[in-house]
């Protein structure tokens, strides 16, 4: 479904992603794990069109999309729930959700019905329907960011660090939702620093280090890989 071929992304002269080649098949949950500054978020920004691709190809459903403007990517079926949630703080939960479907030009009735679908998935948002997004807790904002992305009816959902800064209980809840989304047939590309959780739910995963893919395999393989365990799961074998 999504194929990255030798993709390079750079902030001016500084390379952030080097020759990344990644495949995501329809119906899969694919995780990209790695430390701070490994280039994970940059990679998602590149796919969503927020960062210009300096070289390489991004192919979605057989078509090259690496030069498309971001507002056209979303119409093709790729939605990004960005790092740090980035909900619109001065607008209500309802308005944030409707903005997620902005490009689809739905009638108000259809829009209400689709917002209701999101409320079924995220019941806490229903209680907050008319509150400004700035008043929500971090976990609620994360749910809103994901729900807002889903309002674009994406076939590929890009999730950037959904666990960032959240309490363990809320993280469990968010990951539960990701699993149920996968059951509903949405393909998910998940970027996470919480490598253990991400690998546990991922079909396949890539490990990114200073902009390059250094390892790939199924979620379970990587979860039990000694190098991964030492570097990203905080489990050291040579502790004194």
């Amino acid at each position, binding site marked *: 479904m999504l194929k990255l071929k030798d993709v390079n992304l750079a902030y001016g002269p500084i390379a952030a992603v080097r020759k990344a080649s990644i495949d995501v098949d329809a119906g899969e949950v694919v995780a990209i794990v790695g430390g701070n500054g490994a280039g994970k978020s940059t990679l998602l920004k590149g796919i969503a*069109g*927020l960062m210009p691709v300096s070289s390489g190809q991004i192919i979605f459903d057989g078509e090259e999309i690496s030069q498309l403007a*971001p*507002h056209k990517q979303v119409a093709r079926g790729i939605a*990004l729930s960005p790092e740090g949630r980035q909900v*619109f*703080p001065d607008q209500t939960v309802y308005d944030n959700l409707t*903005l997620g479907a902005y490009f689809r030009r739905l009638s108000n009735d259809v829009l209400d019905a689709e917002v209701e679908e999101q409320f079924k998935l995220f019941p806490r948002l229903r209680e907050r329907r008319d509150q400004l997004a700035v008043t929500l807790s971090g976990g609620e904002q994360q749910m809103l960011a994901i729900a807002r992305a889903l309002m674009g009816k994406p076939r590929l959902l890009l999730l950037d660090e959904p666990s960032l800064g959240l309490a363990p209980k809320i993280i469990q809840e968010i990951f539960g939702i990701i699993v149920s989304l996968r059951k509903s047939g949405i393909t998910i590309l998940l970027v996470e620093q919480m490598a253990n959780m991400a690998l546990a739910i991922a079909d396949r995963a890539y490990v990114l280090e200073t902009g390059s893919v250094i390892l790939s395999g199924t979620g379970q393989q990587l979860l039990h890989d000694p190098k991964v365990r030492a570097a990203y799961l905080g489990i050291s074998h040579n502790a004194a």
Partner: protein
Amino acid sequence: MDVYLQTLLSGLAIGGVYALIALGFSITFTTTKTLNFAQGEFIAFGAFIGVTMLLLFSGLASTTTAVPSEAASAWRYPAAVIAAGAVAGLMGVLIFLLAVRPFAGKGGMNWVMSTLGFGVMLQSIGLAVWGPAPVMVPSPLGDDVLRIAGAGVRPQELLVLACAILIMVALDLVMRRSRIGKAMMAVAHSPQIASLMGINVGLVMIGAFALSSGLAGVAGVLIAPIASASLFMGIGFALKAFSAAIIGGLNNPRGCIYGGFILGVLESAVGLWQAQWREIVVFGLIILVLAFRPAGLFGQAAVDKV
């Protein structure tokens, strides 16, 4: 008593004009983080396009130093207002594409110079077309002073106030209720995130400049019967409107409107006391306000939960 009411009404009328232009500053600032420093020339251009339209609609020669009062009667004045708004709006698209977009979002202040320069060019073009002499413009409601509770009011002042309020209420509704308004708010918060919603951010920014410039054009035709049309009229209005936007808080459209009215009434009130002290007191107060409230009276530093 009458004289106070009179002062208040003319202060509100001129304040309404400041508010319209200040709102224009706020619209481009929130969506593109840039300002059109040629706004003054857009006001003057608006006034002269209005004049030209009034003459054209009445089948008169296209240059004159005083527009006869029949030329502003019936449908002609409203049509001239709309035409001036539309032409100024188109010029706003032009200034965005030529002088702002190449520099916006790249850091630096090149857009300040390029919009100022665009304004200087506009003024020179205006002088070549219409000449330097001011033109008297009649009010569509006539120039007989009305008596309201003993206070003498020019009918044009009431018209300006009514139009300004009408336009601003309509815009406020559009911004808060319509999808395009919410999309503009989204772009104001973050162009990148807005683009993830499928919003064509470039188009919204063009629209913001068209709207802002259109407001300046409309303001020019509204004020022309009071101040008379002159290619040098704009800078004073634009500076006051900019001050009003700063007092009210550039990122708060409603604050800018309040700022405009406050400045207009203040100016009018000081003028009642000592006309030659007007500018000194007004700008002194602006500096004082900013010393204590750097984000403006109604502005607030944005706080985002991380």
